[in-house]
């Protein structure tokens, strides 16, 4: 098996372009590795070797020419409809050319598989899927994160060097943190979304890249954006931190790892860290949940809810029915809070460049028990993760999770959130952090892979 498979996304592309790596061999090795490792990970729920070989045969000389990638089960492909990790999607998806598919195809990439995901995108753990749970390559008994569970596990497990996920309430950033990857939730509307069954109504969901480091994330996200995100220096970063609860209410070791990274980033950029406050922060999470759930509310009719597939998990059967019963007054207030949160962020970004806090409040929990223990008490990983991630989706602002070390042997991530349109600068900041830490954390690999 070629070493090329263990190169980063950009290195693979450059080696292919230079004639040092045969993309046909790379593809076959990739398919072989998926067959070898995926039974332990369940990261990839569909492969289609003939379609992949056809993509390679027809691949243009783009920035990802010949590079294998995985795409989440959230968009249709010409030969396969998405299933959203579920037996019952409420919508009726059909195969087709989604925008992420076209972006990847036109960049010369080769889609080698579809990534598993948390059922209906409704959880942050990846523990529930019609295909069975995906497993974290760092410890296969633990959650890989969700809802982009398969894309993250596929990259961390060395099946591919890059994958396309989606983030509607942190669904790229949690799996990135749990699996030791870099994952960008782009500014709303900047990345390819067409073809997603909620593309016409969503104001929260975006596509985005999951890769080992920021350089590869920049490359794949540039493809999804349809424009290059040029690398640069982030400048002297003024970094704001919201201590309570985002730093203070984290499991042991999380805040310390993130604080060390934050200090290194500030020093690397000759920047500074300031404590800031976001007014009425406690309202952001319930508002984000309600804004997001309102996007598919039109499908939550009694006939639809009374004919849900018995193959849909009882958790999601209950969640969907609960959503149908949420009073409209609460949802209306959620949109007011969104306006409040967007103005509060904009005001902060007149004085600071970034906000920073831990991507997840605790390391990946076991698949068998997805609760976590925080200083405030035991809670579900979903609730604590959503608290850390919701603001980016509520407001449309971009955010990135970067790996900053291990806690109890499991990866954790630092989240950086920037002003609207600052996606490139977030990647610049992530690369500055990599320099400051001698790339220690982006080079970490699970023992089973290393």
């Amino acid at each position: 098996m070629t070493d090329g498979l263990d190169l980063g996304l950009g290195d693979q592309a450059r080696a292919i372009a230079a004639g040092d790596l045969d993309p046909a061999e790379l593809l076959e090795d990739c398919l072989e590795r998926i067959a070898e490792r995926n039974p332990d990970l369940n990261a990839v729920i569909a492969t289609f070797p003939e379609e992949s070989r056809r993509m390679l045969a027809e691949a243009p000389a783009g920035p990802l020419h010949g590079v294998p990638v995985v795409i989440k089960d959230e968009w249709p492909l010409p030969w396969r409809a998405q299933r959203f990790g579920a037996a019952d999607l409420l919508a009726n998806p059909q195969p087709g050319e989604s925008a992420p598919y076209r972006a990847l195809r036109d960049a010369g990439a080769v889609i080698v598989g579809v990534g598993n995901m948390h059922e209906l995108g409704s959880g942050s753990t990846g523990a529930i899927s019609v295909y069975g749970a995906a497993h974290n390559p760092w410890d296969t008994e633990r959650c890989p994160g969700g809802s982009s569970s398969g894309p993250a596990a596929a990259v961390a497990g060395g099946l591919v060097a890059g994958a396309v996920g989606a983030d509607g309430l942190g669904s790229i950033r949690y799996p990135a943190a749990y699996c030791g990857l870099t994952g960008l939730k782009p500014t709303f509307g900047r990345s390819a979304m067409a073809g997603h069954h909620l593309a016409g109504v969503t104001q929260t969901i975006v596509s985005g890249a999951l890769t080992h480091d920021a350089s590869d994330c920049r490359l794949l996200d540039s493809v999804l954006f349809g424009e290059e995100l040029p690398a640069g220096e982030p400048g002297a970063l003024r970094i704001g931190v919201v201590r309570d609860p985002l730093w203070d209410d984290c499991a042991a070791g999380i805040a310390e790892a993130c604080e060390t990274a934050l200090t290194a980033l500030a020093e690397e950029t000759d920047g500074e860290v300031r404590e800031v406050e976001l007014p009425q922060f406690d309202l952001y999470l319930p508002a984000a949940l309600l804004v997001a759930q309102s996007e598919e509310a039109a499908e939550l009719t009694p006939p639809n809810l009374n004919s849900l597939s018995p193959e849909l998990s009882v958790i999601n059967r209950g969640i969907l029915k609960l959503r149908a019963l949420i009073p409209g007054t609460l949802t209306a207030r959620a949109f007011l809070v969104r306006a409040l949160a967007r103005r509060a962020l904009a005001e902060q970004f007149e004085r600071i460049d970034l906000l920073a806090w831990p991507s997840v409040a605790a390391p990946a929990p076991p698949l068998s028990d997805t609760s976590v223990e925080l200083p405030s008490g035991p809670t579900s990983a979903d609730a604590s993760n959503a608290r850390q991630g919701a603001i980016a989706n509520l407001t449309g602002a971009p955010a990135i999770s970067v790996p900053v070390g291990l806690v109890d042997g499991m990866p954790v991530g630092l989240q950086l959130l920037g002003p609207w349109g600052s996606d490139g600068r977030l990647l610049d900041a992530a690369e500055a952090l990599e320099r400051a830490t001698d790339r220690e954390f982006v080079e970490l690999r699970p023992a089973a892979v290393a």
Partner: protein
Amino acid sequence: MTPDSPFQSYLQGALEIYGIDADEVERAVITGVWEVYEPGMRLLAEADLSSVESEIAPDLSQSPAR
């Protein structure tokens, strides 16, 4: 949450009014999920938002208009 809690009463009535079927397990899930998020929802319901100006058709890709 007690069997006769306000939420249980609401759940029972709302399911009946809307004609949504839910078995015991689904009702337990609904109750469990609501218990997790109820404190936040209660804060949202009770917050004074009277001074918050709504944002009409916001462009989520941009900073809000000043």
